[in-house]
């Protein structure tokens, strides 16, 4: 004859509260007793609480442990543009090319805010940048092939014939890449 066992629902209920009926059954059934005891220790058995991250997230987390420390880089992040004067409509009254010889940009990544002001001079572009963060003290600015240290006022200044293709921040062993921007002047509509 088949021995009667508690259903799954009864086991969950018994793990929460032992009624006389459950006590009677468990006194005679060690198999159900074991399971009830387990469910009272691990009430999560039987619940689906966790969900899986996208694969790309997992791969990025795995990479964290693969970057050799001797390179000094622990992680790579990508900043986003939160302000670009060239894509923002100019105030009424300002028009023509004047606005295009200057460009103001603001990038954001984690708690780092980077402001860059670019000014077209006769032959060169003059760049003045500032990086602010509550948690990171030292931020270096890496251009295509050179690294810029901040001056005593915390400003990064440089001139170049052409705007840099790639700007990267080195902040506390993290590399933060600023998105590449087009420096072609937007066409008038």
């Amino acid at each position: 004859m088949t021995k009667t066992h508690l259903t799954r629902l009864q086991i969950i209920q018994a793990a929460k509260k032992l009624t006389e009926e459950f006590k009677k059954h468990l006194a005679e059934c060690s198999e159900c007793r074991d399971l009830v005891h387990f469910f009272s220790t691990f009430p999560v058995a039987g619940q689906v609480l966790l969900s899986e991250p996208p694969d790309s997230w997992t791969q990025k987390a795995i990479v964290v442990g693969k970057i050799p420390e001797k390179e000094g880089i622990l992680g790579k992040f990508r900043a986003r543009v939160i302000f670009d004067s060239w894509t923002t409509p100019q105030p009424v009254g300002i028009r023509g090319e004047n606005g295009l010889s200057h460009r103001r940009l603001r990038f954001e990544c984690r708690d780092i805010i980077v402001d860059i002001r670019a000014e077209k001079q006769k032959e060169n572009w003059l760049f003045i940048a500032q990086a602010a963060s509550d948690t990171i003290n030292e931020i270096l600015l890496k251009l295509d092939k050179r690294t810029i240290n901040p001056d005593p006022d915390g400003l990064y200044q440089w001139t170049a014939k052409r705007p840099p293709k790639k700007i990267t921040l080195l902040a506390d062993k993290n590399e933060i890449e600023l998105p590449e921007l087009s420096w072609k002047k937007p066409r008038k509509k």
Partner: protein
Amino acid sequence: MTDSELWQAVLNGDEKAWETLVRRYKALVYTVSTRAGLSMADAADCFQQTWMLTFQNRHKIKEPSRLSAWLVTTAKREALRLIRKANQINNVPLDLDMICDQKLPDEELDQLEKQAHLEIALNDIDDRCQRILRTFFYSPEDKSYEEIAEALNISPNSLGALRRRCLEKLKQVLIKNQYLVERKDD
């Protein structure tokens, strides 16, 4: 391998051990990140930064058997940092204690951690036992014992003893991993 063994391997520079740990706890970190009510972009940042901080601080973790608690705490802190930042941008006054209590209560985080432990232990026992226990743990609540036996294609007469043995195996893994304290009457 237990978390402590894996952690020792990570400290020795074993990349594979790190990958195993990430795969072990990715669902836990992801669930904490997403339950905090962050945008997907911020949740991705929270997830990545949790692993980053864990790796950066790996020499500071003194009790690797409590690694899951470390991950949960780090993910929670990161989530709150991002919530604070988002609210500052939007000029919303906020009460972090209230956010903690509402979105990530400790009791719920504890349950998430326990489920992660249970999943790790289930994956560490043989396939047959996994199947039996998963059926008991996750089948619809109203399924009778006989229906479960039929679904598993096992005689109801032998299922009870089998289930008991499998549960014992699971408990041993949980104890070995220090997810469960061995009791004298177990």
